[in-house]
């Protein structure tokens, strides 16, 4: 096979890619990428470099900036694909599926042709664990990739760093959140970073670096999300307990919260850090051995009880970073929750000012309200001796109702219950609150957690003090509400052969 035809492709070892082409990128960003690719079960072995890659995002910003310069500047980027197998040019020429396949493919990084080089659209598979904790990234998205006609795909959380030309950190974070949701949500579109900045600034025309690099105000962040098609919600000065809960609940349903953070003056690796910054929460760590002991109500706890830290994508500091949440001291008022962001073995400290959650269109009820509705009904059932008065743990996540039904078909082995759920008309988006016994969860492997039942709430309802519900299932019975002629009718079924079962796997599509 003629390998010399593949002139724009270069194959090197993964280590060599980092010591050459990726050497000059920001050290924190480079180190985080290295950790993601090398500190994992199937480590990166080979890098395949596409030298003349036309990147959609860079191209759109190029024509606003460098493309208007008299001196010719390159609009071609480099895209580096990583494989955990030993790949050669011959394998690419011969389309060897035993070497080049989705199993060994770890994703790609785009390098912008500017000095110093920065990271463009990047999709790298998330790590399985961080610092010994199991890592979960339910906001990951499946990305199709074409490498010289070979079809590949990778599940990854989108990452991009700012170019300081058409965007600052706010745009980069909005892009990361949008690219994680847009392929999964009907009614929103994928936007380039330059389009996001234009939406935020209400600009229908090309704009220059003076506008693009100055950052976004909070209302502009909101406006950009609205312009893309989301129904965003903005919260201010969260307390630690609530920041943990709100991030966990929404991340678990595939929605990446965007955090606006203030960094007091500090230094890391010789670089001064101070000021306002934005990043995206893409996942969480899980440890059932330790607990926060922060109940939602009486003896009812959220599953965020077992979340020691979050996983964030920070355009300035790197991909898949660990962020620990702590209570801020009085000195930081009105800021109430702090974050230690780990960059290798060093940390930087910031304080959460506000957070923005990009809800899919028509989603109105926040997940934190759904958890409280579940807690209310669970406590009520306990008071009526329907449920034993044991501490309970609730895991709430947003799901497309059709995806929820698909998951039931795949995962639930109680035919009667499955049939009841499948027969039920549901709104497009639902909050699912699965609950189990806290004692059963403590110390249990994350893959073996069991639920005793689940409640479903209409995500399109306003967050009012109203004890609304769509279904409530506990061991041996289920209550469902069906709509007939614009009114809700309650039905009761006793479930024969009911049993505790595994948690539904995090939905890939929200």
């Amino acid at each position: 096979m003629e390998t010399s035809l593949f002139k724009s492709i270069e194959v090197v070892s993964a280590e060599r890619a980092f010591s050459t082409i990726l050497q000059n990128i920001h050290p924190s960003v480079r180190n985080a990428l290295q950790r993601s690719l090398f500190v994992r079960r199937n480590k990166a072995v080979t890098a395949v470099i596409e030298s003349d890659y036309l990147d959609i995002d860079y191209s759109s910003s190029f024509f606003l900036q460098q493309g208007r310069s008299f001196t010719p500047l390159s609009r071609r980027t480099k895209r580096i694909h990583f494989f955990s197998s030993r790949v050669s040019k011959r394998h690419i020429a011969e389309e060897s599926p035993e070497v080049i396949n989705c199993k060994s493919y770890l994703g790609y990084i785009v390098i912008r042709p500017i000095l110093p080089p920065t990271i463009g659209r990047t999709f790298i598979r998330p790590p399985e664990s961080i610092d010994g904790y199991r890592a979960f990234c339910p906001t990951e998205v499946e990305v199709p990739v074409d490498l010289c006609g070979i079809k590949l795909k990778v599940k990854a959380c989108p990452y991009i760093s700012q170019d300081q030309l058409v965007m600052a950190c706010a745009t980069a974070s909005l892009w990361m959140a949008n690219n994680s949701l847009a392929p999964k949500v009907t009614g929103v579109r994928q936007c380039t970073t330059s389009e996001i900045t234009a939406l935020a600034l209400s600009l229908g025309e090309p704009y220059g670096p003076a506008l693009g690099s100055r950052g976004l105000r909070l209302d502009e962040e909101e406006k950009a999300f609205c312009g893309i098609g989301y129904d965003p919600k903005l919260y201010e000065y969260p307390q630690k307990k609530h920041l943990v809960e709100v991030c966990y609940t929404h991340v678990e349903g595939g929605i990446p919260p965007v955090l606006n953070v203030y960094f007091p003056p500090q230094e890391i690796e010789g670089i001064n850090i101070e000021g306002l910054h934005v990043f995206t929460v893409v996942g969480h760590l899980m440890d059932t051995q330790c607990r926060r002991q922060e109940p939602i109500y009486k003896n009812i706890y959220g599953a965020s009880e077992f979340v020691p830290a979050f996983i964030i994508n920070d355009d300035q500091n790197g991909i898949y970073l660990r962020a620990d949440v702590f209570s801020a001291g009085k000195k930081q008022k009105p800021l109430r929750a702090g974050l230690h962001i780990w960059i290798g073995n060093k940390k930087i400290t910031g304080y959460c000012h506000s957070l923005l959650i990009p809800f899919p269109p028509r989603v109105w009820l926040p997940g934190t309200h759904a958890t409280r509705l579940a807690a209310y009904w669970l406590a009520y059932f306990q008071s009526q001796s329907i449920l034993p008065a044991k501490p309970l743990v609730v895991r709430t996540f947003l799901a497309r109702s059709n995806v929820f039904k698909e998951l039931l078909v795949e995962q639930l082995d109680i035919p009667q219950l499955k049939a009841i759920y499948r027969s039920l008309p549901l709104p497009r988006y639902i909050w699912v609150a699965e609950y189990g016994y806290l004692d059963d969860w403590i110390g249990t492997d994350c893959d073996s957690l069991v639920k005793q039942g689940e409640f479903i709430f209409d995500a399109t309802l306003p967050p009012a003090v109203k004890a609304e519900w769509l279904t409530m299932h506990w061991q041996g019975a289920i209550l469902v509400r069906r709509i007939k002629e614009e009114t809700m009718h309650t039905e009761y079924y006793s479930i024969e052969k009911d049993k505790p079962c595994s948690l539904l796997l995090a939905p890939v599509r929200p």
Partner: protein
Amino acid sequence: MAKFKNKVDEAQTTRSLPQIAKQVEDISLRPSREVLQPLREMIVELERGLPPATSGEVLSSRVRW
């Protein structure tokens, strides 16, 4: 599938619901202020710890991120 249909047909309608279902329906449709008090308390506590940005303080902030 036939088995499932039978089960649905056997669903207990509102008139013949067991006690717990009737209580739940009452709370959902005709709640008293008292019975909703725990939910109200939970939501008040939530909004204290995670205030929606309606106070204007955050939204009126002119800083750029």
